[in-house]
C-alpha cells in the first residue's frame, strides 16, 4: 500500500512535480501514465526515497519514507529508470549481492533464486556474466534482483521500455503474477497500450500534475471518449500540456 500526499519538487525555477497525490492499493496494478517529462520518474524517485520531496509525504504500508527511509525501503522493490548491471558479474551473483545486502540467509536466498529462475525463465543465463546480455535479459536480471527480498510493494519505472515482444510479455506476466500474490504494483509508462493491458487503476500525469485518476472505465466516463487513447489525449492535451 503506497500513499503519496501533496508531493512537490522543484529544480531551480522549474517545477517538476506539483502537488501530486495518489494511492496505490494492494492486490492491484496502478499505472502512472503521462508523456515524457510529465514528472513520473521524479515522483517515483520521491516515493522510493532517493530524492527528497520539496514538500508532501510518502507512506509505504504506513511507514514514513522521509523519516524512516531504511525501514520503508525494505518494504519496496524498485526497478529504477536506470538499472545498470555489473558486466563482470554473473546473473546469479547480481541476485546474491542484493539478497545479501537485504540480509537474506543463504538457504532462503538459494530457494528464492531458484524461484525467480523459473518465473523469469533465467535458467539458460543464470551463471553467465551479464556483459553480453540482450536488453531483455538485462531487464529480467534487474527485476529479479530488485524483488529478491520479497517486498509487498513494487515500483517499476518504464519496465518495458525498449523491450522486444517476448521480453515485454515476460514482464507483463510477472506483473500479473505479483498482483495475483496480493502485492501493490506501481509502474510508469508513456505507452498507452502498456497501461491499458495491465492496469486496474490509472493515474494520468501531465506537466508535473495529476490530471485524472481512476479505473479505465472511470476515465472514459470522465472524458466522454470511447477509447483510452482519446481519453488520454483529451486529458493531457495534444502537445502534452495538462488541460
Amino acid at each position, binding site marked *: 500500500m503506497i500513499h503519496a500526499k501533496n508531493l512537490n519538487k522543484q529544480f531551480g525555477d522549474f517545477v517538476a512535480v506539483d502537488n501530486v497525490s495518489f494511492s496505490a492499493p494492494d492486490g492491484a496494478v496502478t499505472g502512472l501514465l503521462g508523456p515524457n517529462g510529465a514528472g513520473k520518474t521524479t515522483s517515483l*524517485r520521491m516515493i522510493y526515497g*532517493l*530524492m527528497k520531496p520539496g514538500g508532501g509525504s510518502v507512506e509505504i504500508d504506513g511507514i514514513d519514507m522521509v523519516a524512516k527511509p531504511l525501514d520503508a*525501503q525494505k518494504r519496496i522493490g524498485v526497478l529504477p529508470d536506470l538499472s*545498470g548491471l555489473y558486466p563482470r558479474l554473473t546473473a546469479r551473483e547480481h541476485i546474491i549481492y*542484493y539478497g545479501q*545486502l*537485504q540480509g537474506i540467509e543463504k538457504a532462503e536466498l538459494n530457494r528464492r533464486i531458484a524461484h525467480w529462475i523459473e518465473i523469469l525463465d533465467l535458467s539458460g543465463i543464470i551463471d553467465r556474466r551479464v556483459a553480453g546480455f540482450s536488453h531483455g535479459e538485462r531487464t529480467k536480471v534487474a527485476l529479479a534482483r530488485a524483488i529478491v527480498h520479497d517486498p509487498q510493494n513494487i515500483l517499476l519505472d518504464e519496465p518495458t521500455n525498449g523491450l522486444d515482444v517476448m521480453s515485454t510479455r515476460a514482464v507483463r506476466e510477472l506483473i500479473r503474477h505479483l498482483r495475483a500474490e496480493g502485492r501493490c504494483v506501481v509502474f510508469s509508462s508513456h505507452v498507452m497500450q502498456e497501461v491499458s493491458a495491465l492496469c486496474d487503476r490509472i493515474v494520468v500525469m501531465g506537466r508535473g500534475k495529476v490530471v485524472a485518476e481512476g479505473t479505465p472505465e472511470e476515465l472514459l466516463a470522465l472524458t466522454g471518449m470511447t477509447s483510452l487513447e482519446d481519453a488520454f489525449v483529451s486529458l493531457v492535451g495534444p502537445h502534452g500540456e495538462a488541460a
Partner: protein
Amino acid sequence: MNKIWIVAVKEWTDGFRDRRSLYTLLISALFGPLMIGFMFSQIASQQKGAQEIKIPVVGRQHAPVLINWLTQQSGVEVVDGPADPEAAVRDRKSDFVLVIEKEFAEKFRDSRPAPVQVVSDVTSQSTRSKVSRLNSLLNGFSSEMGGMRLMARGVSPVIVSALKVEQIDIATSQQRAAMIFNFIPMFLVISLFTAGMPIASDSTAGERERGSLEPLLLNPIPRWQLVTGKWMAAMGAALLGMLLTLAVTLVMLSRLALEELGIRNHVGTGQLILLLAATAPMALLAPAVQMFVSCFAKSFKEAQSYLGLLMIAPTIPGIAAVFYPLTNRPWLHPIPVLGQYAMVTEILGGKAPEPLMLVAATLTAAILTAVLLSLATRLFTSEKIIFGR
C-alpha cells in the same frame, strides 16, 4: 559490519575480474623495482669499467719505467694511442689519452719533473671516473718515484708528508647509488596509488556511469557502510600492489651486489615490518582520496584522468626527496606522503623511526581517511551525484 564486508567482497571480485586492473597492478609492482635495478646495474658497470682501465699512450718509447709501472698495476692495460690525441678525444673515439713528451726521458733521468699530458673532455660524465683513476695512478707513480729518490739521498720520504691524509672514499658512483635508494619510497607510494585506482574509480564513477548506483542505494544499507566497503576493497588492492612492489624490490636488492657499490643493505625481517608500518598509513589514505575525487566524475574514464593528475601529487615530493633527502627531520613523519618518504629512506639506511612518530603518522592518515570517507558518504546522498549524468 557484515554488510560492509559484503560490499567489499563484491567490489574485490568485480575488480579482479577486470584485466585492466590486474595489468596495472602487475606493471606498477614491477616498473619501479626494475627501474631501480637497472640504474644500480648501470652504476655498477660504470664503476667496474673505471677499475678496469685501458690507457691509450702516445710516446710510450720515451718512458719505459712509467709504462712498466702502469702495466704492473691491477686492471690496467696500456695500448698505443691515436696519432692526433686531441682530435680523437673530441670525436669521442678515445675517452682520454696519455701523452708522454719527448723530454720525459731526459728530465726523468735528471730527477726533474717529467712532463706528461692527460687529454680528456671534462664535460663528459661517462669518462670522468676513468680519468680520475688515471690521475690517481699517475700521482701514485709520482710519489713512489719521489720517495725512492729521497731514500737514495739518505732522506726519509716521510718528512715530505706534512699531512697524513686518510681518504674516506665517497666516490661519485656511491653517491649516485645512494641517491637511487631514495627512489624506493616513491615507487612504494606510487604503487599504492596505481593498484588502488581501478577499484576506487570503478566502484564510484563507474557505478554512476553504468546506472547501477540508483538501484544499489535502494538496498537497506547505510551510506557510510557502502562507502566503507568500497574503500576497503580499494585498500586491499592498494596494499596488495604495495606488498608486491616491496617484495620485488627486496628480492632485487638481495641479488644486486650492493656492497661493491659501497652501500650496506640493511634490510632484514625487522626492517621489513618497519617498512610496512611506515607505508601502511598511505594505504588507508590513498584509496580514500581516490574515491572522493572519483565521486565527482561521471564516468570511469573521467575518473581515471582525474586520478592520473592526482598521481603527480606524490611524485613531485618523491623526486625532490631524491635530491634533497628528507632524513633527520622527524617533524616530517606525521605528514602523509612526505612522512612515508622520510621514514622509508631512514629504514633502508638502517635507522628506525621513533615508534611515537609511526603512531602519529598512522593517526594523521586515519583521521584524513575518515574525513574523506565521510565527505564521500555525503556525496553518495547528494541527488546531483545519484541522478546526475
